[in-house]
């Protein structure tokens, strides 16, 4: 090796590293290592004075290789590489040694942490002489953005992006956009009518010339990389020509299959086999559900829908359509599912009438819902007493450990709505802790206390129909320990609302896999960094917003959607983006043309050059996994930035101490 001039910088990170690692000792030791011309320690290397140390040494001492022993490269590698680059050093001649996340934070003993820090640092000192100057690959950026999910998060992100003049594809799997928010009656704590604040946005998204609305569509495949994604979207057949359908609804009135449980009404109302999910649907177009339509099931039907349809929009021969779209960035806003309380058998959901979920209550209390907004039990009578049970499927180690954040507040909203509709009705809220953390939330809680709602601090033990007294006869009995009074109470109720938690969508895991990022332990999409990059994923160019990331209320969802839109815009507003140059290359002089690598490449980035009898890497397609490097029997493919010599040198360094 020629004489490299390596500089070592050891960061204290306040006491995060220096509290466990003897920084002076390691720095003094590093100064003695081969090729190291200077070794310094500093309180905060990421600060401007810290970065200036690196720059000065590059400029004044002619340092040509740098190792910064500090936090994870995920955190500050871009910071230090930028500093090196500013001083004229190729950024790929700088390596980080992760002595915080992988050492000081995980090691109990100070001496052991100091020794491990030396090994981690030495691996990089040994690696650096083999590092090559690399130039990031600059690729063009497609300015269009895809938003997946048409709830409030997706709608908001799409509108924000459209306002900047960008082309947006808004993909929604249901026949209409609107998501869960469209099902709600009022929103806490202001009691805004959900439809009044949502439908103008839905309508705007539907009419926006920059937004191509792909409702009743799902993403099937995604390929490509940041700035250049290729997405296959399946537009499911509605069996209705959406260009000619006017959304008049005559078909659904004419349909003979009228008793299909309405998804939008949580099964409490009925719809026809041809239907418009709700009056404010966007797009306002009919859809035939092939599972229930007699004609599509191959049964006999006089097809009164066809007769009723003025514009002759019904088309039983319509087929799914697969669209190939190209976008530069993607915003995932795929939402949540309400936790199904059936497994919590103690609450008798699905066993006893009038034990309902929160979303079912939203529909019951909604003026456009199955009861016309009258709060009534199954027999049509208004309840004299309602119990609302908090934390169903939340904060429960048997089901979901997390707090779903919105249930306390929507429960309070329910209490208010019940008291507003039925002032004589007794309302009981059985809660563990009242979490009223948002703007105006605590005030709303206080207001409800003044409205005469009974608050019982305790998680309900069971809901049964077992009466012990004549008064309990024929009613639902909620057994709950009032932990403030220290007694077990039996609350008779005519309606029990289960404040179910928010769960990840059932397909969240597979969707995340399709898009190339992961899920947290609780099943929600995993953000790149919980604090600094809460709307980014590990896949560059793919952002997340709303409840697919974690349960949150509408204000937070809208804010996050704006942040995700800004992230996408910051990318697609540029003509080009720089991607990591750590891709493979094949020396044609050495390649014997066995082509074993060709079939193994996950991205079809290696092709056979039959004329020359060699394999060739398609640089634009290679993503740098290195599978071909490990597969080649003759060791011909090499991966820039992860050369065999570099990995060998790291091993030597790590083992030499």
């Amino acid at each position, binding site marked *: 090796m020629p004489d490299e001039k390596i500089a070592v910088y050891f960061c204290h990170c306040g006491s995060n590293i220096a509290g466990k690692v003897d920084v002076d000792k390691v720095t003094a030791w590093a100064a003695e290592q081969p090729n190291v011309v200077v070794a310094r320690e500093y309180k905060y290397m990421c600060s401007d004075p810290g970065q200036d140390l690196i720059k000065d040494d590059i400029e004044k001492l002619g340092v040509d290789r740098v190792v910064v022993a500090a936090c994870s490269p*995920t955190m500050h590698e871009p910071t230090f590489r930028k500093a090196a680059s500013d001083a004229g050093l190729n950024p790929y001649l700088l390596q980080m040694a992760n002595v915080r996340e*992988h050492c000081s*934070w995980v090691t109990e*003993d100070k001496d052991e942490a100091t020794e491990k820090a030396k090994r981690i640092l030495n691996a990089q000192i040994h690696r650096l002489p083999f590092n090559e100057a690399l130039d990031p690959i600059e690729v063009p950026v497609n300015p269009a953005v895809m938003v997946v999910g048409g709830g409030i998060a997706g709608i908001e992100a799409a509108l924000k992006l459209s306002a900047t003049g960008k082309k947006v594809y808004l993909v929604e799997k249901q026949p209409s956009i609107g998501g869960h928010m469209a099902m709600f009656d009022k929103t806490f704590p202001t009691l805004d009518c959900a439809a009044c604040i949502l439908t103008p946005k839905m309508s705007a998204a539907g009419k926006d010339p920059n937004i191509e609305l792909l409702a009743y569509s799902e993403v099937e495949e995604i390929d490509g990389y940041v700035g250049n994604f290729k997405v296959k979207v399946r537009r499911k057949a509605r069996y209705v020509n959406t260009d000619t359908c006017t959304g008049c609804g005559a078909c659904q009135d004419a349909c003979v299959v009228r008793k299909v449980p309405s998804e939008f009404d949580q099964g409490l109302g009925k719809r026809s086999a041809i239907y418009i999910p709700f009056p404010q649907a966007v797009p306002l177009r009919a859809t035939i559900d092939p599972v229930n339509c007699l004609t599509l099931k191959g049964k006999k039907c006089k097809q009164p829908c066809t007769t009723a349809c003025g514009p002759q929009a019904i088309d039983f021969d319509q087929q799914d359509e697969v669209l190939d779209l190209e976008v530069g960035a993607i915003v995932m806003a795929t939402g949540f599912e309400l936790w199904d309380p059936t497994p919590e058998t103690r609450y008798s959901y699905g066993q006893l009438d009038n034990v309902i979920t929160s979303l079912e209550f939203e529909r019951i209390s909604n003026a456009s819902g199955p009861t016309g907004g009258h709060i009534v039990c199954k027999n049509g009578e208004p309840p004299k007493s309602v119990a609302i049970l908090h934390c169903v499927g939340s904060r429960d180690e048997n089901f979901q450990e997390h707090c779903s954040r919105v249930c306390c507040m929507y429960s309070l909203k329910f209490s208010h709505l019940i008291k507003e509709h039925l002032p004589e009705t007794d309302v009981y809220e059985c809660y563990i802790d009242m979490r009223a953390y948002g703007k105006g939330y605590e005030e709303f809680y206080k207001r409800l206390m003044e409205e005469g709602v009974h608050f019982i601090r305790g998680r309900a033990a069971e809901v049964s129909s077992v009466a012990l007294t004549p008064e309990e006869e024929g009613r639902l009995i909620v057994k709950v320990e009032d932990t403030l009074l220290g007694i077990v109470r039996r609350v008779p109720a005519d309606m029990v609302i289960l404040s179910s938690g928010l769960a990840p969508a059932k397909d969240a895991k597979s969707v995340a896999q399709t898009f190339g990022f992961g899920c947290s332990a609780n099943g929600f999409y995993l953000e790149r960094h919980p604090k600094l990059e809460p709307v980014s994923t590990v896949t560059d160019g793919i952002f997340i917003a709303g409840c697919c990331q974690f349960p949150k209320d509408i204000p937070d969802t809208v804010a996050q959607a704006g942040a995700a839109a800004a992230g996408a815009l910051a990318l697609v507003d540029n003509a080009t983006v720089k991607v990591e140059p750590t891709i493979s290359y094949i020396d044609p002089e050495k390649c014997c043309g066995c082509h074993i690598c060709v079939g193994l490449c*996950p991205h079809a980035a290696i092709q056979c050059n039959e004329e020359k009898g060699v394999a060739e890497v398609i640089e634009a397609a290679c993503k740098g996994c290195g*599978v071909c490097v490990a597969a080649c029997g003759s060791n011909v493919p090499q991966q820039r930035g992860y050369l065999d010599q570099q990995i060998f040198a790291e*091993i030597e360094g790590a*083992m030499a101490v």
Partner: protein
Amino acid sequence: MNDQFEPRLIGFLCRWCSYNGADLAGTSRLKYPPNMVPIKTNCSGRIDPTHVLKAFQEGADGVLIAGCHPGDCHYINGNYRTAARFPLLQKLLEQMGLDHDRVRLEWVSAAEGEKFQQVVTEFTEQIRALGPLGWNKQFHDEAADAETGAVEHEAVPA
């Protein structure tokens, strides 16, 4: 210091899942033994048998390979290559007289800081129980013998 054997370990971590899982263990301040030095690659599918052999040659007593869970690979199916190669690697090591438990393959996601802690802790104890390997000494001694011409090519001791 007590005189129990402290194994020296190398851990190859894929950049997207396991390296971030290790970061999460750190951010969560989960403590585990300091014996393993992590080496980052983009994908576990980049790990070549020669990397593992090199680690043993340099004195490692055990080698961990950790990647994304099946289906979660950032490179679609790079980790399936890892999974397919791993039994071959174990077989190769057995033929060289090594206990195949000196290498371990684990799937650790970016959300599994606790799993990372548990894997490193268990693996450290596993290798501690197996005892030192000492390939570095053996190689260096053989190299020295070769220089003095004293080497005799006999069967490799098991």
